[in-house]
């Protein structure tokens, strides 16, 4: 089992619903977020290109945050999910420093927090809140080991990329281009 997400940059309009949906679903405090949207513009008017990406934790296969965590609070869970156990976390910030995607933040309660791929929903067969909220249906989620899953199917037919694979993190957040 290997959970992954693919985001279609051709369909994403950058509305940021994924961000609010995550915020309400996971009680992320106002002023913080686990996911965010990036707009990349290239070219000179009127020869322009735009890419919009909904980004979040890459649930890396070789997660530097898990490696750096001194207490084991950051750990791998079934399906390759990288999670933080709040009452093991001392809030040292090492994992935040170790993440090249700046996907982690320090929760006002003290522990470090990040995207969980909505593990609580996935566990019972659901999908992450962002995926289910997205009005453009630009996000695909599922198990890469299951060839029939949404994410496997879309990755088979579409060209995709990951973010800074050269950082050696083995990211599992794909962007369809």
């Amino acid at each position, binding site marked *: 089992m290997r959970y992954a997400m693919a985001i279609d940059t051709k369909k994403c309009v950058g*509305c940021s619903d994924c961000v609010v949906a995550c915020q309400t679903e996971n009680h992320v405090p106002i002023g913080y977020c686990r996911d965010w949207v990036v707009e990349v513009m290239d070219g000179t008017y009127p020869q*322009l290109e*735009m890419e919009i990406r909904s980004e979040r934790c890459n649930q890396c296969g070789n997660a530097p945050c898990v490696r750096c965590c001194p207490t084991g609070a950051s750990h791998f869970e079934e399906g390759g999910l990288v999670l933080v156990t709040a009452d093991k976390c001392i809030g040292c910030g090492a994992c935040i420093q170790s993440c090249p995607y700046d996907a982690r933040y320090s929760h006002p309660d003290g522990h470090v927090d990040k995207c969980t791929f909505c593990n609580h929903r996935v566990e019972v067969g659901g999908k992450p809140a962002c995926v*289910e*909220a997205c*009005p*453009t*249906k630009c996000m695909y989620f599922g198990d890469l080991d299951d060839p029939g*899953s949404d994410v496997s199917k879309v990755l088979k037919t579409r060209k995709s990329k990951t973010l800074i694979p050269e950082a050696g993190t083995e990211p599992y957040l794909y962007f369809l281009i």
Partner: protein
Amino acid sequence: MASRRDFLRVSAFGIGGMFVAAAGLKLQASISDLNERSDKLYLNLIKTPTYCEVCFWKCAGWVYKTDEGEIWKIVGNEIDQHCNGRFCPRGTGGVGMYHDEARLKTPLIRTGERGEQKFRKASWEEALDMVAKNLQNIADKHGPETIALLSHGSGGKYFTNLIKALGSDSSAAPSFSQCKGPREIAFLNTFGEEVLSPERTDIRDTRCMVLIGAHIGENMHNGQVQEMSDAIDKGASIITVDPRFSVVAGKSKFWLPVKPATDIALLLAWIHVIIYENQYDAGYVEKYTYGFDYLKQHVKNFTPEWAYGITTIKPGTIRETAREMANASPAVIIHPGRHVTWYGDDTQRLRAVAILNALLGSWGRRGGFYQPESMPVPSAPHPPYPKPRKTWRDALNGKFNMTELPLASEFVEASLPDSDRDLQYKAWIVNGTNLIFTLPDQQKTIDALKNLEFVAVVDTMPMEITAWADVILPECTYLERYDSIRNSPHRLPSIAVRIPAVDPKYDTRSAWWMAREIGLRMGLDDYFPFETQEEELDWQLKELGTSLEEMTRKGVKNFERSWDDLYIAKGQEMEFFTNTGKIELYSTSMAAAGFDPLPVYTKHELPPAGFYRLNYGRAPMHTFSRTSNNPNLTDLMAENTLWVNPKISKIEGIENDQYVWLENSKGIISTFPIKVRVTERIRWDSVYMVHGFGHQNKMLERCFGKGASDTELMSIVHKDPVMGGTGMRGNFVRIHIEKPQEELS
């Protein structure tokens, strides 16, 4: 052969079938059973149906609460055609509307001058008595028709009932004269029907969609955004005409960076190519349209070469895009847009859009425009309304005859001290529309507000408009109240209900209750036969063959269509609701009213040296100015920015993130500075900002002074002579690095 009606029945069945199949496949569960699963997951949670009030799209959804009974999240109702189970950021962030601590909390009565924002708290008794007494005085003194209602949203219905019962028919929403009016009038005079809301565009099945200044995706009209995404998936091509590189321009096969204010020239050139290259749907045009020969003659000289000189779009591109549309015909949509009050000749531009659609045979065709149907909802029985002695048309003094609806901006004209209108307004009830930020030429609105004898404002939030009220009635949010049945037109007729998820916070009440309480105080009991809205809804729903109990469980109910006419069948005889009974390429009504029966291009003013055209638009995370203080949504976007082309940033000597002031050509300076965003996405002759920021009401703690208000810079208004829409894109601004001193004169 199965009729289309059967097909629909089959597909309705299909949804149920998917549901059963999904239960067996744990991981590949379809969207339809999400809520079932969520229920398993959160067994102890209660979900309440609602439809969203953050914008006019009114998506139906579910409100979930936490164990403590606090509102937790709002998600879409999967059988709702408006949202298909997916809310937009504003709908999802609707929770913030409830939690916003800056909300209006108690009735307030003005103690200082109007606009000074000095109020004292009052009881509901006192506030309602005061409203009733003032309205009665004005009705006695000037006649009830001098009472006007300006509203946007659910409350409008209840107050319309109130003023109609009194004897006034002046109920206007700025969504007509400041937004979609020209489109509705243009389509009405072409096809005999309006585009309506949600728009009847069949985007999900289109093969080519043309967007002219419409920025779907940035305007988060949920259903359209969803269907556009589906269309992209299916390989539809998008042609975007916009001087700004909008989000959808980035997803388009063709982006035409048109010179601002020249769209009609482009449209005429397209019509020219389609006619003279014989690319139009000849059978459709022959059978259903009127005036093709006039049109053909009319556009004879409007060649792409002619348009090139005006629009700066190359002739080759104009031809190529015209062929692209024609190849997709009839599954093509020249999208009519929504906010179309731009340059004052907007009805004519939208007529050109309508004509282009007619030529390509897209009206009433799959992938073009479907024929929507809505459920007729019976209104509560009441005696007939008294006939108003003067109607809203009397406030127009014979102008804008072709409008079908009252014009909010003309209500202002008819409320000014020196107004010469046959009907002059003395009192306003304002509900859910922040007129100061909605109507251009702010000073006029303020002059009118100063001149009125009585102003009551009903809103959930303190806004610029509430500062001008004599009495402020705090409305509870949509999450805390019942509202009337949503019966918007769609592919399938449907109804949706809004059930309160929680009790009203603070001392707030629903607009339904307020209107009734005022009515009772004015002896209008017969017009408010039900004591609670719950009873009224239950009665209405039972008339529709369901009940409040059933709807509380389901939230949404879709019905079958009464006829199998979602699309025009092949060879079907059609009678259109126009003078000729045909689709009028040549508009007989417009000709009769003395307007150009065929659209013409008129040249518009260009920005003077040192000035830039003020272009404005929407951000997906905000609805105008009403969401600016919503904690969840300010989190996504706290202020607007001024988009400036890199070339201009060099000339003006400004950098990214620098704050600048704007001054328009009438010398009006923005109250607050705005942050610069240097970007290639905007032309060098324009600047761009998102509408709805720069709030001046200090009670809006989160958004006060954040960003600039585009509305306050709109001093020049180009009124559409056809229907009175207020063209707002003819305003020019210059950039100041330091705050300019206002001249004392």
